[in-house]
């Protein structure tokens, strides 16, 4: 089957890609700027196309707990929201991580804190990559920088989620969610019929009962479980790092940016190079695991790194850790829903040389 070319919003692309990836369920609650995901799914009648369940929940809290229930049945389930709604989901996400359940959570980030703005932002980086809810856990975090990637990462997210029995977050932003671009959609996949052995499906006489829980009253046993999680996260760190490089071969100055900021930086690099400044970009595609080793290598080659983010400076801390003092690291950011102009990023670079 051929791929299909469409002009779509990022939010619509996520929804259509979910149907085509053979997702079993979506549970959501409206919030700007991601309501199109639920709207699209309701209109596209996935129940008729593939049997996928789509439900508008009474709150983000209910939606994430529906995801918990569905994931524990071994199903491919997901939710989407934007920053304030993702904060509400954190309890459920922690339980999902603690019960080692696979699922996809899409965050179309807007400016904060609080109700903030509805414009694009990257201020949920800490929340997404450092845990977010309570307890020692990590999500696998994918950062799309185009509508195409919002579609492609749905399938990738489910693959990783089931491979590691771990929740995956797609950390997008209002710009990528709301804009339309060309997108090549994969052909329809069948919904999976395999039932993982850890899933609750009703207990046949041939096996022990399955208990999905994150509770352990014995601290020694809980510590053993924490160690098991650490081992899993280390395996993910080793095997699942993804990033993209632009003009890094001869770069003397390196931008580090993801999502919308990474696109801004591509233009900034053009502007800088036109003025004889050799700039390059490393775009992390996975924010957890973070491309630590590659950044550490690049720190031996470049003179300076600048973390460009639509935030007050969050990822910059990881860039500093990765470069480990080898080169100066700066942060350039806009906040509150402002997107940096390529010119201002180039000017900032020039001011630091």
């Amino acid at each position, binding site marked *: 089957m051929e791929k299909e*070319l469409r*002009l779509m919003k990022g939010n619509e692309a996520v929804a259509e890609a979910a149907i085509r990836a053979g997702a079993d369920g979506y549970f959501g609650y409206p919030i*700007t*700027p991601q309501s199109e995901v639920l709207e699209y799914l309701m209109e596209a009648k996935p129940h008729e196309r593939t049997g996928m369940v789509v439900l508008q929940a009474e709150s983000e809290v209910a939606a994430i707990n529906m995801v918990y229930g569905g994931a524990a049945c071994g199903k491919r389930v997901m939710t989407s929201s934007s920053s304030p709604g993702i904060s509400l989901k954190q309890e459920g996400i922690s339980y999902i991580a603690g019960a080692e359940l696979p699922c996809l959570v899409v965050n179309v980030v807007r400016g904060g804190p609080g109700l903030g703005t*509805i*414009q*694009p932002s990257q201020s949920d980086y800490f929340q997404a990559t450092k845990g977010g809810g309570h307890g020692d856990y990590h999500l696998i975090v994918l950062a799309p920088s185009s509508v195409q990637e919002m579609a492609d990462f749905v399938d990738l997210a489910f693959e990783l989620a089931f491979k590691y029995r771990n929740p995956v977050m797609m950390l997008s932003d*209002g*710009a990528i969610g*709301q*804009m*339309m*671009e*060309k997108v090549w959609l994969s052909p329809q996949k069948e919904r999976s019929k395999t039932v993982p052995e850890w899933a609750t499906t009703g207990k046949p006489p041939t096996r022990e009962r399955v208990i999905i829980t994150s509770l352990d009253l014995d601290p020694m046993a809980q510590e053993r479980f924490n160690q098991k999680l650490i081992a899993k996260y280390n395996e993910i760190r080793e095997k699942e790092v993804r990033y993209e490089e632009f003009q890094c071969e001869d770069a003397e100055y390196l931008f580090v940016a993801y999502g*919308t900021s990474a*696109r*801004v930086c*591509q*233009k900034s690099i*053009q502007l800088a190079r036109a003025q004889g400044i050799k700039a390059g970009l490393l775009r992390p595609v996975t924010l957890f695991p973070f491309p630590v080793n590659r950044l550490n290598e690049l720190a031996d080659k470049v003179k300076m790194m600048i973390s460009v983010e639509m935030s007050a400076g969050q990822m910059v801390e990881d860039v500093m850790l990765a470069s480990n003092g080898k080169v100066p690291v700066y942060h350039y950011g806009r906040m509150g829903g402002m*997107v940096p*102009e*390529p010119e201002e990023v180039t000017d900032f670079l020039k001011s630091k040389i």
Partner: protein
Amino acid sequence: MTEEILIAGFGGQGVLSMGKIMAYSAMMQDMEVSWMPSYGPEMRGGTANVIVIISDERISSPIIRHFDTGILLNQQSLDKFEDSIKPGGVLVYDGNGINRHPVRKDISIFRIDAAEEAGRMKSPKVNNMIVLGGFMKIKPIITLENVIKGLKKSLPERYHNLIPVNETALQRGMEIIREV
């Protein structure tokens, strides 16, 4: 070639859909496109605007503050965005209801009285197609053939009977646009 366009006006002027048809037509021509609307409460009844970028290269930032072409369809948009057009760029505006006309000397300014023309055609809904026709005349990037394809794609089947009047509107736009 990269063309960065801002379209702004009242919600009811078909600003977003004009941008969508532009983007769709360019995509049909194998170009890269992005369509970035302003969104949120300001959409409700107030002004709407959309940034459309058409390019034969991968598009970097979809949100920019300086444009090759500004299509500014009410006074509010004109006041807000006249200065956002790059020197040497193009401004298209509708004279309807405008009491402070554009003043820049370093750009080309075109006027298209689309609202008036749509009134004459007795179909106010084609306002945006008249403007689009005008744009196609001065910036021949997208072809009429692809715009019609785009219309077919974006209009539900039951409105396909409206395609001929839209085509007429596009042609009228090409005829009535004039440089100031």
